[in-house]
Each structure stands twice: as C-alpha cells, then as structure tokens.
C-alpha cells in the first residue's frame, strides 16, 4: 500500500469512524444508564435520516440539491424522529423488562424487546421504501465545499471533500456530549445514575427523567450520525443494523460505558476498516465483515470489557 493510498485510507477512515463514534456514544450512554444494550440503535440512525428525507422529498429520494427551507426541515425532522424513536424504544421495548426495585432484570425480555424494535423499524421502513437502496440528498450541502466534491491528497489519493466536515462535525458533537456529561449538572445526575441507581435516587436524582434524557441524547446523536453518514453512500433499509453493530463494536472496543472510549474505538474501527477496504489483498468484502467480526472476537476474548462497576456490585 503506497503512502498516498495509506493517507487516503486514514483520512476517509477517520470520517467513517467519526460516525461510528457517534453511534457508539449513544450505545454506550444507554448501557451505562440502564445496563441494557440498545440493539435497535442502528435502525434508529437510518430511520431518522430516511424518514426525514421521505417526508420532505418524497418516496423516491434522489441525490438532488435541497433548498434552504427543505434542508432545515430535513435536519429538524431527523432529530425529531431520532429522539422519538429512541425514547419509544425505551418506553415500549425496554422499560417493561427492568425491575429496578429488585435489581433483577429479565435479560431475555429486553433482548427480545430490542431486536423486535429493530425489526419493526426495518419492516416499516421497507414497506415505505421498497427499493434495494437509496441515494439520500444532503441537507448540509457538504459536497459543495469543492467544485467536483473531491479533494486531492498529497501522494495522489483523493477523498470526497465531505469527509472533513463530517469528521469535524462528528467530533464536535462527540466532544460536546462528553463535556455535557462530565461538566453539566444534568450530566452529573447521569453519571450518578450510571454509578449507582439507588444512591442517585437517594440523593434526589429523578431516575426516570435522567434515563429518559439519556435516550433523548442517544436519539439526537443517532440523528446527527444519520445525517452525516447517509448522503455519502447508498442507504439500504438494513444498513441500520450494520451501522449499529459497528457502533456497538466501537463502544466495546473502548470499554462499554466509557464515552471517550467509544469515540476512540469508533475512530480506530473506521480507520482499520478503510485500510482493509483499500488493501490489495483483502478488499471491501473483508471490510464489511470487520465490525461484526471485531464485536464477536472482542467479546469472546475480553468479555471483561462488558463488566462494569455496577455489574460487579450486584454481588
């Protein structure tokens, strides 16, 4: 692999990884608040982007250019759908299976709830959007930053110009979320709940409100990830699951429950995936298999990655 290709892989990998980081951040946030895996999180990402486009542009979205009004509408709608779906998943599919009073949980129940929520979202989307894949217009007009939408890199490689703003926006949002969690009063409440549900409740933290707001944040992150990711490629209804698995892999790589870990894990996974995709021996097939493979292998080799404070404290 020549230096130019290497640079191209790293730059585009960072942009892909930044999206994974946003998805993984939501995933990790949900885990630390509820000790539940957001198995439908990737579907929320794709559903947010596709639903917004579906409503604003119509059933046959094309990569057309959107005016200012419709661009804003897409962004607002995506955020709304992302938040609504994330919260709805929690209320309908997860909460009924958590019994905080007894600290016992119905694992089979919430796993089934999560995969059902994902399946319902995918099926509903597929009924509305029957084609195999869609090109989604970009409400942020990131391609317009250069004349032909690409940028030449030193060494001869080229990358789409959008990777730079995608990387910048995703990292800004990720860092902002992390700061919000570590600095704000509300973030303190969230960390208190993540650390010890009972103690937080005794200190006057409203448990339900805090957990719900974590799902609101996860939903917004999902919407941002969808808006950044979807216009760059063809989006199929099922790509939500693969994106969700990549986010989960990012979160697990960075040790589940750690926001910074999810961001670092996402960036690392994105770069690794692009390196594999551009390598002469491996190619895109292997790149597609990388996130779920990483997930399975990391969980099997280092299952402790899922162990966190509260799990140990359960006795």
């Amino acid at each position, binding site marked *: 692999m020549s230096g130019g290709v290497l640079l191209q892989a790293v730059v585009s990998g960072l942009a892909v990884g930044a999206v994974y980081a946003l998805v993984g951040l939501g995933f990790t946030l949900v*885990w630390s608040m509820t*000790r*539940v*895996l957001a*198995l439908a999180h990737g579907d929320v990402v794709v559903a947010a982007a596709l639903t917004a486009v579906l409503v604003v542009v119509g059933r046959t979205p094309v990569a057309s250019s959107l005016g200012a009004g419709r661009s804003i509408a897409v962004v607002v709608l995506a955020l709304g759908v992302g938040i609504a779906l994330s919260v709805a998943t929690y209320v309908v*599919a997860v909460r*009924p*299976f958590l019994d905080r009073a*007894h*600290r*016992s949980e*119905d*694992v*089979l*129940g919430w*796993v*089934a*709830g999560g*995969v*059902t929520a994902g*399946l*319902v979202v*995918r*099926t509903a989307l*597929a*009924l509305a959007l*029957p084609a195999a894949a869609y090109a989604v217009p970009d409400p942020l007009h990131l391609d317009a930053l250069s004349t032909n939408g690409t940028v030449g890199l030193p060494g001869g490689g080229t990358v789409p110009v959008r990777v730079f703003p995608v990387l910048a926006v995703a990292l800004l949002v990720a860092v902002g979320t992390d700061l919000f969690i570590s600095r704000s009063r509300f973030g303190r409440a969230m960390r208190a709940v993540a650390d010890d549900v009972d103690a937080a409740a005794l200190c006057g933290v409203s448990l339900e409100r805090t957990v719900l707001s974590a799902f609101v944040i996860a939903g917004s992150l999902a919407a941002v990830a969808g808006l950044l990711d979807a216009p760059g490629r063809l989006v199929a209804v099922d790509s939500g*699951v*693969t994106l969700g*698995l990549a986010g*989960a*892999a990012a979160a*697990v790589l960075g040790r589940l429950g750690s926001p910074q870990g999810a961001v670092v894990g996402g960036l690392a996974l994105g770069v690794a995936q692009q390196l594999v995709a551009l390598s002469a021996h491996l190619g*895109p*097939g292997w790149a*597609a*298999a990388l996130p*779920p*493979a990483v*997930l*399975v292998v990391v*969980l*099997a*080799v280092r*299952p*402790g*990655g*899922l*162990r966190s404070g509260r*799990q*140990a404290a*359960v*006795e």
Partner: protein
Amino acid sequence: MTTLAQDLYLLLAAYGLALPVSYAGLPVVGQGAFVAVGAFGTALLAAHGAPLLVAVIAAVALATVAGYLVGFAATRLAGASLALATWGLAWLAYVVLVRFPAVSGGSQGIVRPVPARLVSPALGVVVSLDAWVHVLVAGALVVLAALAVRRAASGPWGLDWAALRTSPVLADSLGVPVQRRRRALLAASAALGALGGAGTGVLVGVVAPADYSPLLSLQLFVAVLVGGTATWWGPAIGVALLAALPSAADGIASAAGIDPLRTQGALTAGLLVAALVLRRPVAARFARLSARVSARRPARVSARRPARTRPSAGADVVAGVVPAPPSAAGILALHDVHVHYDSVRALDGVDLDLRAGEVHALVGPNGSGKSTALRVAAGVATPTQGAVTINDAPAPASGSAAARVRAGVARTLQRTAMLGALPAATQVAVGARATERTAGLGWRHLLGTPSADDVARRRRGVTARALGAVGLGDRGDVAAAQLDSAEQRLLQVARAVATGAHGLLLDEPAAGMSKAQRDRLGTVLRRLADAGHGVLLVEHDMALVGRVADRVTVLAEGRVLATGSPDDVRADPSVRRAYLGGTALPVHSRQERQPS
C-alpha cells in the same frame, strides 16, 4: 412432504436453541449463524468431493467448536455480552455469505442434485434421500433431541440449568460451574442448529444466502420464546407457528404487492411482540400457579424425599451433613488482605481466621469493610494485596465463587430477591451437587446408569438433612418465593450447608427477622458450629452476636480494630469510640440490654 421435512429440521435447530434460551435463560439471538454453518459447510465440502456423510459431520463439528468459542463471550454475570456477541455473529455470517460468493455461491447459492444419494462403495449400497427418507431422519432426530433434552433437564444438569436461569450469581455461589455449563449449552445448541441446517440443505438441494439472513435467527429465537420456559413441547409449538409464516406471508405479499421476505419480517415482529406481551403476565401467572400446585403436591425434581422426612432438627442431623473437617484448625484465613478501589481503601491489611466449631462474628460500622472481607473470602472480590488460605492451602483463584465452594467455603447472599419460583428442595439440591465427584454424571443420568441413580438418592438425602438442619424439613416443596422472609434466610443457610463446605460465610442472615426468628436462627447457627462447621457471621444485631458468637472481630475503616471474645470486645474502649463516634455516652449500649 418436503415442507414437512424442512419444518422438522427447523424444529431440530429450535430444540438446540431451547437449551441455552429456555433452560438456562441465556439470550442467544444468533442460532441462524450456526444453521448457516451447517448448510453451507456441508454444501461446500460436498462440492469439493467429500462424501456427504463426512461433509455433514465435519460441518456440524465446525459449528460445535464455533458455539463453544462464542460461549467464552458469556461472562460470569452479564448475559448482555452474549446477546451482543450472538447478534453480531448472525450478521457476520450473513455479511460473509453476501459479500463472498466463493463461500456462498452468490445470490443463487450452491446447488446440489436432488434427491441426494448416499453411496457406500464398500457395502455396495446406494440410498436415495428423497423427501420421505428426510422426514424419517429428521423426525427421528427431533424425537431423540426432545427426549434427550427432557431427560437431561430432569437430572443434575437440569438442576444446574434451573439455578443458572434463576440467577447466575446464585448458581455460582452454590458451586455450579457457570461458565462451563454455558459453553457446553452453546456448543450443543450450535451442533443441533448445524445439523438442522445441513439436513435442510441436502433436502432442498439449494443453499442461498437469503435463506440464512439474521431473520432466521430471530425466528428461531421467537419460536423458543413462544414455547415458554423449560418445556419440552415449547419449541414444537413455536416452530408450528413459524411453519405457518411463509405461506401466510406469501398470501399477504401477493395480495398487497409487497416483498414476501419483508412480510415475513413483519409477521415475525408480530409474533415477537405477542411473545413479549404474553411473557410477563404469563410468567407471573405461571409462577403463582406452579407455586400453588407445588404447595399441594411434591415437585418434580428430586423434591420427593425431603417432603417425607421428619422435620427433625437435632445436632445429629447436622452431623450427618458435614463430615469432620480435615484439620481441626484453620478452615479459612485472610492474611494481610488489602482491597483498594482507586483511592478508597475498602480493606487495609486485614488478618482474619475461621476455625472449625466456632461462630466468628464480623461486626463494624457501615462501610467498615465487612462485606468486602466476606467477598474476598468467597472469591468474588480480588484482593489488591494479601492472600487467602482454605484448610491451610492457598485458595483457588478469585473470580468465581464456585471453585471456593468446592474447596470448602460457601457464602450466602445478602439479598433474597433472586430466589425465584424454584422449590426450596430444588435449590438445596443444587447446592448438594457441589459434593458430587462422579465423573460425567450428567451423561450417566442421560443414559440412566445405576451410578447416576445412586448419586441422585444420595443427593436427596443430603438435601433432606440440610433442610432439616435449619428446621425447614417440611417446607421442601414450597416455592422459595412463597416462604416467609425468615424462612428464605434459613433456606440460604441450608443451601450453603448442602454444598458440604465447612466454612459458611453468612452475610446478615438475620436481616428483617423478628426476635423469635432471630432466636431460631441463633440456635441453628450454634448447632452448625457444634457439628464442626466454622461460621463467619456478618451481623449488625449485637444481641444475636453476643448470644451465638465464640469470637468477635471488629472492623473499622478497613482495619481490624479488635478481636476476641464478645465480652472482651465489648469492653474495648476503641470499639466504643468507633461505634459511638468518640463521644462519652455511658448510657446503656445495646450489648448491656441483651439477655445473656
């Protein structure tokens, strides 16, 4: 006929999945991946010239190994990692099939001639595998699998699974090798799944990626969920529902002009939702019902004998449970144990020992490190520094309580919430399993050997004696959730006693008990010590401590403040300071008001 054979193969995969999901409560959502390994493995190997039977066996073996390895993702406590790993596996398999045509034959799949033929040149026999033969083979396999699952569930494995299902923490504390059981269950589940996949592939003659999408994993998962918990007929009901799906989906799809695969997805989602909606109320109703039923008649699993034993509670009964310990001296010792969490020193150089025949009380203000000391002794907390010995030998590595139970130290859990709907005698029988050293006991039970029956008889005896030792001899058939809170605490002690461990670590066994109940507990503890047990008692109730303890160790801020007889410790000024915050309060302390 082909459809029937196909459904039977699917049922085989569902029986496999029922092992981890409905018997052990593990969230496995990737059974489709193992089915795919069976189908594509067989097709690929056969395409490369392997004899059909060899190809099937090799593919099933491959899936078994894969299932075993995935079992490593099941951490001791968190079922969540297993759900994530298997869901990842389902998609990994699908991505590989779609992206690598060399493996899957592309979207058309790998095609073989149908009906397949089994050729044995040595015997000169050629068997043509038409649909009828498949129905017979698949039917026989399904019946065998169902019988084996049912039989295994009634034996020692079934006890371990029931404990796992109720609570992995509880199972671990009773000496169940949690990790080993999980890996074995996943390997067996993968094997049956792959067998079903191989059968379907050979039957239909085409294996294409679209048939092995993660939707298959979800469908098998819902089939097992619909069937309920630990029933041998459950998967059959679930698969019968699934079998109706494709035709219903095709009907709706052609009527509404939608993709049939999506319609199947919608129907699967509907089934999952139904299973979920039914799950909570039905489970609760079932628990109540079975509790009521089991209150009237003896429960199934090894609970019969204890019901008929007299509820006697003499020291001789206890002595029958516990042989004299190998050395009269140290059952358990902590040597200079430190436990540091970041800057917090939960334990800061604690020395502690427990001898046979004594009740050793561990007291101290909240946060003084009592429970941490107990957790270190039980092997569920790892000391930052220091050592633990059991019977004067180094204790097994910490991380799981099960190994410590077998070495001779068992603990009770502070909370009783995880007792569940299992009958009391069943729970005690799980503990009694820790004393069994017969190799391959589960297999022996499966085959019904006399040695397995002997062990089961012995287990019933141990169970009855342990229940008798705490005075619950007549409560063996009652679901633990139906016992009153004091009886639940006593049941915890009985479970620990049944493990045969000499050292009993009891974490606040008197919490929530009335005066009369505490007296009863005190008598039980005293008798256990007199019979040769060493009892390490973490307790707040100083009256109880004063009455039963031979020795008292006081912890404060992670250090041993004082140790000695209850009277000596009570007179120690530093202990008074620790308890009363240094103020001179010469009023009646609780110790002075207690009956001696």
